[in-house]
């Protein structure tokens, strides 16, 4: 890879896909325990917004467990199976073209949908245009110690690999890109490709029922591809009809 740095804007660093990452979520296995939500918040320094704001819809979790009433009429009371909802890393992402400052971008090397926090000016168009409603906005300075002095005691809980976001910035699931980078660097130093299952995201690692699987989409032998193939009759993409081409395959539950 060419790495010589010339004048700004003239360095031509060749970038190409290193791996295509995806996820399979089995709704039959999901128990709704929210371990993924907790693990994700720990791994990615997701702010705790407090009871009042969370109740008003300002929770900032990058992953949430959705469950809806299918029928509320007795005796046919029925709920939908749990559905963990996180950024689908759309190949054709509606959030990307609407950002006026290129803060919502597609990474070339991982083919992921990423948010550049320090570029974001907070127009919130991406959040509006996301059909999955998985973008969280920093409505207030939730992680500023000058405003929340109690956070001082929690210095060591922060993940040093992940930025702490300030107010007025949009954020979202990154597929734990810090872990992807770590694995990429390790594989590169050892002169090999990243193996499937070498690392996983925080939510997948925390899932006690193994409902969430993370891995390489471009490797036909990978676990996610095997799982999706074995359960082809149950596999679907969320909101397939609007053709965002998501990276996450759900396996329908309760069938």
């Amino acid at each position, binding site marked *: 890879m060419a790495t010589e740095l010339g004048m*700004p*804007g003239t360095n031509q660093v060749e970038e190409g896909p290193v791996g295509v990452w995806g996820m399979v979520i089995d709704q039959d296995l999901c128990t709704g325990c929210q371990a993924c939500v907790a693990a994700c918040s720990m791994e990615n320094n997701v702010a705790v917004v407090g009871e009042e*704001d969370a109740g*008003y*819809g*300002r*929770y900032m979790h990058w992953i*949430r467990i*959705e*469950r*809806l009433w299918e029928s509320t009429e007795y005796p046919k009371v029925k709920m939908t199976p749990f559905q963990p*909802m996180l950024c689908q890393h759309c190949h054709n992402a*509606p959030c990307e*073209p*609407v*950002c*006026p*400052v*290129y803060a919502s971008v597609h990474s070339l090397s991982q083919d992921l949908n990423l948010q550049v926090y320090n*570029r*974001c*000016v*907070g*127009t*919130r*168009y991406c*959040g*509006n*245009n996301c*059909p*999955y*409603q998985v*973008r*969280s*906005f*920093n*409505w*207030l*300075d939730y992680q500023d110690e000058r405003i929340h002095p109690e956070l001082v005691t929690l210095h060591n809980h922060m993940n040093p690999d992940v930025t702490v976001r300030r*107010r*007025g*910035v*949009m954020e979202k699931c990154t597929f734990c890109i810090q872990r992807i980078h770590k694995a990429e660097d390790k594989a590169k130093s050892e002169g090999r490709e990243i193996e499937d299952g070498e690392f996983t995201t925080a939510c997948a690692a925390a899932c006690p029922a193994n409902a969430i699987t993370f891995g390489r989409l471009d490797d036909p032998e990978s676990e996610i591809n095997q799982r999706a193939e074995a359960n082809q009759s149950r596999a679907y993409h969320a*909101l397939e009809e*609007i053709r965002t081409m998501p990276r996450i395959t759900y396996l329908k539950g309760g069938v």
Partner: protein
Amino acid sequence: MATVAQPLASPDIDEHEDPRQFLMHDPLPRGQMNDMVMESMHTTSPIFWVVVIALVLIVLFTLGYEWYVLIMQGQGRAGVTRPDYWGVFLVNTVFWIGISHAGTFISAILRVLKVESRRPFTRAAELMTTFGLVQAGLSIFMHLGRVWLVYWMFPLPNQRTIWPDFHSPLMWDLMAITTYLLCSTMYLFLPLIPDLAMARDRTQGGWLKHFYKILALGFRGTEGEWKNLTTAMNIFAFAIIPVMFSVHTIVSWDFAMATRPGWNSTVFGPYFVVGALHSGMAAVAIVLFLLRSTMLHYKYFIRAEHFNTIGMLMLLVSMAWAYFYFNDYLVPWYGGDVWDKLFQEYAEKGPKAYLWYTMLICNIAVPWLLLWNKKWRETPWLLAIAGILINVGMYLERYIIIPVGVTINRMPFTWRQYEPRIEIPMTIGTFALFLLLYMLASRVIPLIPVWEVQEGQEAHMLRKVGKAHVSTLSDLE
């Protein structure tokens, strides 16, 4: 060449009617008219200053202190939340851009179409355009999460060679609003030059003399100057019409280009333009009523015939708006898309349904029931009330499209009510700032385009054909 025209709102002047009720047939000597306008600028009652001080205090508190709080603490002080990422600030933006449309419509389209009754109130409407756009721009800045970085949205050369993304409808919007602000300010300025020269010649020293001297660009009223000015105004009048149509179409694309149900609609462009004219015309009626009842001598300039013209335009635009609204409503309803249906059901039957019904009453029932009668159209206070109600309706229309509409999205898990918080005082602040700017401008700028009125009065005359009086208009060009 003399052309027989029906230049006034009333097609024929019948025998018993006094033709002097029309401004164009009630000429005054030039000097007297100029003095009247100058006097109206300089006669200020103590109530005026009390109102100005009150408005300054409101603006300082809302757009000063409250905005400072909003910037320092974050958008959380506003009511926005998931899924209502956009709230009242963008409602205000669309609303004020809508208000600003009337000025261009009246002064450009009516000028191009040579509607004679436009003459005395073009300036008042153009000033609304410029000051309305100021509020729209401020509202966008209020909406931004990190407003101190707003220059990242401007195409400024920078060391990192990062350009703004012109794929984004927000960038089109920024370009369109900036273009419109520049064009409308220039278009406000051009017809103002002769009046500024008039004011310059009638001001004795002081900073105002310097102000007029600089802005009048040395206009002396020679034949060549008039010719150049007329050419420039003609070019601008024609050029600004497409700009006016494009700017609100592009504002509508902020919504129509999104994947949201209820927003992704092809009719939004013309629908928003007509909506803008609807609120703009109504706002002109309010402003004319206020000017007529507060400014000295304005009862001479702004008469029943002008309210009649505005009233007819309001009725016409209201009908056009109803047509587009039901297009926007019926076609998705017939299409039967599940999300569109949910969106419509939420608007009609949801907890905010009262807004939807109020909107329909204010936007359709009020103008259709009040404005069909000429006697009523010629009653200024009635027209002002209709104007206020129409503006309430149009504000609610934008409110239903933005914060009420985004409540319904494709993830029912996130559906949630939006309640404005700090938006309320800041919205009041934009209204106060608009009024304040307008009031201060009324002390400095002649709000009546005197030369246009004089030009019209010179061109109009009454001829007796048989027993009837026929209003004739000599061709000016």
